[in-house]
């Protein structure tokens, strides 16, 4: 285990990318299937419902469409392209990495069957997800997405004839699904690798001693673990075990770590900034961070969570 800092850096970057790639690929595949087999009008029916209903559907969609944060951005981009209203798509993007059976079960196991931690984690994710869905709910999809990164759709077709992909039969559409999956994966891998490089640099080159210095003070502990969640960029299925091991920190800080990491980390930030235009990108980056900070501080100071 005597590894030099650069060897550790290389191993951590590799492990993050290798761990996330299957889920990113799954998200890309799902996105491609939606593009090729699902008609443009099929999912747009959701827009006939009111904004609260759209947000409600988005918040719980992860329970039937489990997606971790590594794969959720391409799926969301495709959903928006298919006419899913922003209120539902944005809520889904921010909530699904936590509000899904796998992540909730992992949290339950890591915290020794403590349902309060599971419930608080889900609540602390759903509140900012709903808020972001509310803020961006009235925005048109064209005003959310950057046109420069619709490459996977445009290049996937390439013929320029404007035909409807959804008319493909299963076998006819398969080559197109594969082509789109590859393009989508490469689009997103750029941001995954960028984030992994930053997270690896943090873990390999920065001292960990600062964690111990801030663990005893709620005002420092909450932002410190929020920062840690962003910097180390670990999977939402594994972060509960890391949080459980940080037992020297108060629970509100652990919840801030658990709630923010799947919504905002070094893998997601470049993806948000590249997929969304500036204003919606700032909303999905800042709103969860501010909301979680305020909520966790309030819960900690009020003594609701000890």
């Amino acid at each position, binding site marked *: *285990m*005597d*590894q030099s800092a650069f*060897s*550790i850096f*290389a*191993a*951590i*970057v*590799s*492990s*993050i*990318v*290798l*761990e996330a*790639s*299957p889920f990113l*690929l799954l998200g890309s*595949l799902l996105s491609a299937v939606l593009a090729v087999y699902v008609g443009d009008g099929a999912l747009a029916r959701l827009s006939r419902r009111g904004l609260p209903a759209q947000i409600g559907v988005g918040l719980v969609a992860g329970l039937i469409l489990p997606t971790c944060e590594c794969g959720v951005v391409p799926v969301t981009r495709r959903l928006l392209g298919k006419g899913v209203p922003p209120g539902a798509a944005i809520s889904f993007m921010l909530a699904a990495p936590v509000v899904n059976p796998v992540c909730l079960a992992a949290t339950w196991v890591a915290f*020794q069957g403590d349902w309060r931690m599971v419930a608080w984690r889900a609540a602390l994710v759903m509140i900012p997800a709903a808020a972001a869905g509310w803020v961006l709910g009235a925005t048109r999809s064209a005003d959310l997405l950057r046109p*420069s*990164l619709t*490459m996977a759709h445009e*290049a996937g077709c*390439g013929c*320029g004839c404007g035909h409807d992909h959804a008319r493909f039969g299963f076998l006819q559409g398969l*080559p197109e699904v*594969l*082509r789109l*999956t*590859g*393009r989508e*994966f*490469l*689009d997103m*891998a*750029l941001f995954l*690798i960028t984030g*992994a490089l930053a*997270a*690896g640099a943090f*873990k*390999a080159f920065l001292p*960990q*001693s600062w964690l*111990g210095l801030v663990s005893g003070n709620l005002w420092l502990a909450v932002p410190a673990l929020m920062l840690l969640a962003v910097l*180390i*960029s*670990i*999977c939402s*299925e*594994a*972060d509960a*075990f*890391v949080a*459980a*091991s*940080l*037992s*020297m920190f108060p629970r509100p800080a652990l919840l801030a770590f658990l709630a923010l990491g799947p919504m905002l980390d070094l893998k997601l930030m470049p993806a948000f900034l590249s997929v969304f235009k500036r204003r919606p990108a700032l909303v999905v980056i800042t709103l969860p961070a501010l909301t979680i900070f305020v909520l966790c501080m309030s819960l900690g100071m009020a003594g609701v969570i000890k």
Partner: protein
Amino acid sequence: MTSATIHDARTPWFARFRADLPDRIDGLCLLALGSFMAVLARSRFYWNFLNPKFSHLTLAAGLLLCLVALPPLLLPRHGRETFGRLSRQVLLALFLALAGLAWRDAASESAPGADASAPSGSLGQQSQAEPEAPVDLNPVVDGVAYVRLNLAELYIMLDKGRKDYPQHFALRAEVMRSPRLDERGYVLLRRIAVVCCLADSLDLRFMTRGEETQTLKDGDWVEVFGHLEPIADKGEDKGLAKLAPKGEGPGLAITNPKFRIQAERLERIKNTDFPYLFEFREKPPFAW
């Protein structure tokens, strides 16, 4: 040059080749990454990066990446090499170089004395080559019954506040020494526990003391037979928890602040080729 012109049979082959090149490079990137993942998943160095239970997932994803590489490789579509496209291709190539470097390091560290260039065996073969786990998970030494478990299992039980941890236990760990702990007669015993991948690994440690501990060297591997003692934040224990050195490896380093191990017996063991812990059980038989 229009689409129709490029696909015209009379167009020079190099013009068609140049127009198809960006798509083919995309295909090559996917194929290279997919092949890397598939080969790594079947290699004996996989555990250096991820928990072995994910090897089938990595293999499946690698094969699927190879599959999605086929359309752009075999049926490329013409297009321009944009800056965005070029940058992702370059970054992916850089990542593969970095991953190759990490694999080389893993090969040289995982199997000291082994030929790193030798063909890799599967995980199954690896486990066959490893020494069998001791049959006796409840050894009796000098009339004392011990329970064999791994360091992470003990740490997790304590972290959860459980009182039913074994009174006398045996565990394997790497020794870590620091001048400040030496002054107090302690060494650290450590294991790296990996849940999913190296990024979420935890470097779990216990302060340990005993008659023979000061004869140990940094990096020694030992099997310790001992029991736990609580650390009080007063008297001779005051400030003890803060003396533990901070992390210097891939994992977040955490030294148990409430308990130390009192070693009753120490046995030096061979450097393990499989130093990370991937399995944690909360009741006997422990993963050891």
